[in-house]
């Protein structure tokens, strides 16, 4: 569902950029509070005089370090999985998104940040997804995808439904963006939802398999 540049109108591109920068920025701020701890460097004094003053500084807490490592591992995994296009209908393929996987294992803000970084690397290094529409791709897959999965999972505890609906939600909003940009009408929505229905089913199954059999997460 990586939008290339050119499909979406400038006003939508700009607004989604502003939104995504803000959202990711706030996420980083909140995660900093969560991951960092205050530590103190103690004053060293020798008979000849002080060597160093004591000062407080921030460093990653043990939990923070573990979380970052997990985010990096899962980001790499999602990147790899997104490369594995599978056929869903004649002449059409789909690929895993990973929003639900990330949010169920890591939590919402961690998932948003991880997904955003994956999308940024994909756009800048591999030209997968446009550079100007990065904000929009982050909005669709990083925010809408992640939070849909988050709320569905929170409420229903169903990995499949969280993953399936997160794909549908992202596809739905992507369709709206395409339609508002003059790319067509209902047929665009119909086409997108039809293909992403199938992709969503695959995402649901894959997410369960990965969480249970690869990661062995107790969720």
């Amino acid at each position, binding site marked *: *569902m990586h939008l*290339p*540049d*050119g*499909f979406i109108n400038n006003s939508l591109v700009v607004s989604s950029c502003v939104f995504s920068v803000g959202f990711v920025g706030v996420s980083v701020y909140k*995660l*900093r509070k969560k*991951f*960092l701890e205050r530590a103190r460097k103690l004053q060293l004094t020798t008979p000849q005089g002080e060597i160093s003053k004591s000062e407080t500084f921030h460093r*990653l807490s043990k939990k*923070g370090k573990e*979380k*970052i*490592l997990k*985010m*990096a*591992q899962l*980001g*790499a*995994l999602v*990147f*790899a999985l997104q*490369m*594995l*296009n*599978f*056929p*869903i209908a004649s*002449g*059409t*393929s*789909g690929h895993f998104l990973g929003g639900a996987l990330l949010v169920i294992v890591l939590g919402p803000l961690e998932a948003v940040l*991880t997904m955003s*970084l*994956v999308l*940024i*690397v*994909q*756009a*800048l*290094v*591999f*030209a*997968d997804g*446009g*550079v*100007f529409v990065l904000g929009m791709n982050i909005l669709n897959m990083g925010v809408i995808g992640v939070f849909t999965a988050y709320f569905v999972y929170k409420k229903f505890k169903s990995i499949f439904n969280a993953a399936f609906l997160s794909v549908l939600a992202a*596809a739905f909003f*992507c369709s709206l963006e*395409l339609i508002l940009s003059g*790319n*067509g009408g209902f*047929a*665009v929505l119909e*086409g*997108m939802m039809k*293909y*992403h229905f199938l*992709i969503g089913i695959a995402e649901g199954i894959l997410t369960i398999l990965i969480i249970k059999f*690869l990661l062995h997460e107790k969720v």
Partner: protein
Amino acid sequence: MKKFKIIIVSLILAGLIAPFASSSPDGLEKVAEEQGFIERAASFLTGLIPDYEVSFIGNEYLAVGLAGVIGVLIVFAVVYGLGKYI
């Protein structure tokens, strides 16, 4: 070692399996073709490894596999590195 399991699986998926992935257009691209707006797609940045194929390797499978391995390592480094300096 257990702590490398996820990275190793990622490297295998991206390096060895990805070259055999479907090359059909994905859902969005297919809708763009069907509804006639695929022509609007523009590219402003070719990137180092456009379309997941390393340019200096002739064999398509190896080119994609290497792109995958590089991508996995870059993503890991970026997330981990940013995390350390958060």
